[in-house]
């Protein structure tokens, strides 16, 4: 599933239960907020990927995908418009973005 993309990359997937988009985090978990997202390239990325795939094997997430990242300081953000949309939620329903959907989170 690893695609050859140049430069730093992040790992994106969907949670099995609700399908929502999550990013592999620096502490080896998954979070919808890119602020926690791990990134890397070369061997660092390969090592991250091995860890991320363990979650897939545990049936926590599906569809692991490497995506291009833009680095600002020590934080990574998706580069492509599609992945930016995935990180933010629908641009036309700001009330449904992951960062503001507290009620949805509590269900």
């Amino acid at each position, binding site marked *: 599933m690893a695609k050859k993309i140049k430069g730093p990359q992040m790992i994106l997937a969907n949670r099995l239960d609700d399908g*929502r988009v999550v990013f592999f985090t620096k502490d080896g978990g998954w979070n919808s907020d890119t602020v926690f997202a791990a990134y890397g390239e070369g061997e660092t990325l390969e090592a991250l990927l091995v860890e991320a795939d363990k979650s897939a094997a545990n049936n926590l997430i599906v*569809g692991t995908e490497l995506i291009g990242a833009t680095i600002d300081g020590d934080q990574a953000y998706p580069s492509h418009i*599609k992945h930016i949309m*995935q990180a933010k939620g629908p641009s*036309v329903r700001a009330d449904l973005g992951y960062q503001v959907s507290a009620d949805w989170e509590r269900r």
Partner: protein
Amino acid sequence: MYAYDKFDRSLVDIRVAEFRDQVERRVKGDLTEEEFRPIRLMNGLYLQLHAYMLRVAVPYGTMSGDQMRRLAHIARKYDKGYGHFTTRQNIQFNWPKLSETPDILAELADVEMHAIQTSGNCIRNVTSDQFAGATADEIADPRPYAELLRQWSSFHPEFSFLPRKFKFAITGADQDRAAVKWHDIGLIVRKNDAGEIGFEVIVGGGMGRTPVIGKTIREFLPEKDFLSYQEAILRVYNEQGRRDNKYKARIKILVEAMGAEEFARQVEVEWEKIKDSHIDVPQEEVARIQAFFQPPELANQDATSAVTSEFAKKNFIFASWLQNNTNAHKVQGYVNITISLKPHGGIPGDASAEQMDLVAALSDEYSQSEIRVSHEQNLILPHVALKDLPAIWADLDEAGLGTANVGLLTDMIVCPGLDYCALANARSIPIAQAITKRFDDMKRLQDIGPIKVKMSGCINACGHHHAGHIGILGVDRKGQEMYQLLLGGSGAEDATKAAILGPGFDEHGIVDALEKVVAVYLGVREDGEEFLSTYRRIGAQVFKEAVYDAA
């Protein structure tokens, strides 16, 4: 409306139980995602851009008030309080949880609905004229035949793994409101010289990356042979359709490669083999199904309503709504109402749970508990008395459903685009919103007149841009959203492919370009001439010069 018999009931109940078990096994890890994916797709459950998406079938776009109320309940309980009506007359929920999906399907089964065959390479939901059985320009109600197709195609063992998805549309009216020529199989009810009912059969239409207008392979198929002939078409396609390349796998590619004449010949050969093998249902069964679709008994009404006429004189928006959002019923004193799901600044095709509840309540009170979904992503209340229109419009308007734009420029077909869809290259909803804001003046819209704008966020053409008088196609240019402008398409009986006008635009430029196209039209149109006729008369060049030379 059709009511489930014990076989229908049993089929959906068994399917819900089966899927519940499959979901449990997936969550426990007994099924891998690779194993589970085709199973969830067969039950209408996609994994979309942000989350799961459940597509629920609304067979031939007809549902009851109770069914609409159940959709509202599902939106409220299991989703985020809204749903999205699609060009296949279905509804999509954008945020269901996997573990709750079996409960949703059970709730749907309870009101005779399901999500079966709303995905996958099988025969999808059959679409039809939203005014079927209620319009003055109809030869016969096409819904009994659509229901026959539904029953024949549901779990059809031979056609569950076709080379690609397969879409039927059927209309009973001369005016094609179901885009039949853009379907894998399009059917038009015809009457022969002897007054017998039959069907014109059109095959090989489709949109996507290779837009093709279907070809008529039979001018008149007798009613008694209805299903066996469809079976013969599907057999030829199933055997010879390409399976090596998904972009070449639709029937349109086969028909183009083979030629319509040769395709028709092979269908006839196949049909000869099977036509007498009891695929067609006996006339008594056709009559049994037709009985479910008998016109309602409507009380006598005057041809005009003083209450409605007086209200229209006082309220310009209502007068516009009366003109644009109602059409002639076959019974005097009645109309069909089209409820616009295209509020200016809103999301085309979306309805909140509260709006769905209101439409259900209005259907109970005014339209025999009947509701329709159009492929243009609006809702219809059929069989409404003319005198009731002011009260209905007032309720709709209060709920944000009173927009008087049906058939006008802002009544756009718009796919979910990159706001929701994993396949999309560009957003389409924000462009639609910008267009509706630019053309927010009802008097201006009225002056522009009937015009169909259709927009897709990618080449798959879910927003029917090939069939738009004005089409907009979102593309990805090096990671940037860009938009191509197309002109001259039609999804009606005069089906035509729209042509790309020139280089694409950014999100602001496309709205400006559309406005320039409209300005050209207003400047050169002849008395009473609608946009498409003007385009056909003068061609693309004048529009091209206005859009690009002045840029």
